[in-house]
C-alpha cells in the first residue's frame, strides 16, 4: 500500500514480445489510416493531398515497463495548394476506452477518432466522437471525412 492507502501500481511481469507486437500493429494502423485518407482525397478532392508532419513520440507505460525504446507515431496533415485543411494528431495506443486514439483538428471541428477493435484484431473499428453529434460515436467513413473537408472549404 502507498499514497492514500491505494494499492501499489501493477508491476505484473510484462510480455516484451507481445508489447512490441502491439506497438508495431498500432503504427501499421496509423499508416493504414494515412493511406485511407490519401485514397479518399484522390477520389473526392483531387486538389488536396496528405503531407507528413514531424512524428509524435510514443513511449507509454507498458513500453517503458517492457524496456522498449520510444517509437514514432506517424502524423500527417491534409493540405491544399495554399491552405492547411486538417491535422491528424496521434495521441497514443494505450487509451482507456479504446485501442488507440487520434485527434483530428481543423479550423471548424476537433473530433476524436478512436479504434474500438480488440488489440491485434485483424480489422480496425475506427469510430468518431464529434461533439456536435452528441455523446455517441459514429463510424469513421468516407462520407464523414468528406463532410469535415467540405466544412473547411466552404
Amino acid at each position, binding site marked *: 500500500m*502507498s*499514497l*492514500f492507502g*491505494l*494499492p501499489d*501500481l*501493477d508491476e505484473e511481469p510484462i510480455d516484451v514480445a507481445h508489447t512490441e507486437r502491439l506497438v508495431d500493429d498500432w503504427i501499421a494502423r496509423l499508416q493504414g489510416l494515412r493511406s485511407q485518407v490519401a485514397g479518399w482525397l484522390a477520389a473526392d478532392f483531387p486538389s488536396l493531398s496528405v503531407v507528413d508532419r514531424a512524428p509524435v513520440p510514443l513511449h*507509454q*507505460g507498458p513500453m517503458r515497463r517492457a524496456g522498449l525504446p520510444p517509437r514514432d507515431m506517424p502524423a500527417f496533415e491534409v493540405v491544399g495548394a495554399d491552405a*492547411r485543411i486538417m*491535422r491528424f*494528431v496521434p*495521441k*497514443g495506443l*494505450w*487509451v*482507456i*476506452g*479504446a485501442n488507440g*486514439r487520434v*485527434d483530428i*483538428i*481543423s*479550423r*471548424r*471541428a*476537433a473530433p*476524436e477518432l*478512436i479504434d*474500438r477493435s480488440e488489440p491485434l484484431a485483424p480489422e480496425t473499428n475506427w*469510430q468518431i*466522437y464529434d*461533439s456536435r453529434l*452528441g*455523446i*455517441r*460515436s459514429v463510424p469513421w467513413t468516407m462520407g464523414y471525412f468528406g463532410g469535415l473537408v467540405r466544412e473547411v472549404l466552404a
Partner: protein
Amino acid sequence: MSVFDDIANNHLATNSVFEAAEEQAYEDSDEAAFDRAGQARKDNDQLYFLYLFTRFELEVTAAFEVIAAAGLSPATQWQERRVWQAWLRGSARDIGFLSKVEILTDKGRPDYAAIKRYYDGRNTIAHGRVWDEQFSVRAVAQDMAGLVSRFARR
C-alpha cells in the same frame, strides 16, 4: 438516461471549450496555443474519467450490497450464510473494490478485465506517478453503463 450519460454530456460541454481553442490555434497557426489546448483537453479527460470512476464505484458497491444482503438473509442456507457473515464483519465500503467486482462479474470474462483496466487507470492518476494516461471519456461512459447492466444481481 444513465448517470454515465449525464457525465458524458457534462464532459461534452467542457471538452467543446478545449476543442474550440484547438480549432482557433490551428487557424492562427499558433503552435504554442495548439499544444496548450491539447494538454488542457487531456487534463479534462482525466478529470472526467475520475468522476466516472467514482460513480462506477458507487454502482459496484450498491450492486454488491444487494447480493450481500441476500447472502446474509435468514432465508439463505447457513452453509452459505456463514461465509458472508465471516466476510462482512464491517461495511461493504471496507471491502476492496476488485473483491466486490469479483462477486459481480466472472473474473475470467472481458468485463472484469475492462474494470481492472479502469481501476489501474484511476490508481495511476491518484498516485500521480504517470500523468500521460490517455482516456476516451465518452467511450468509457458508454462501456460503464453496459457493464453495470450486466452485473450479477443474485
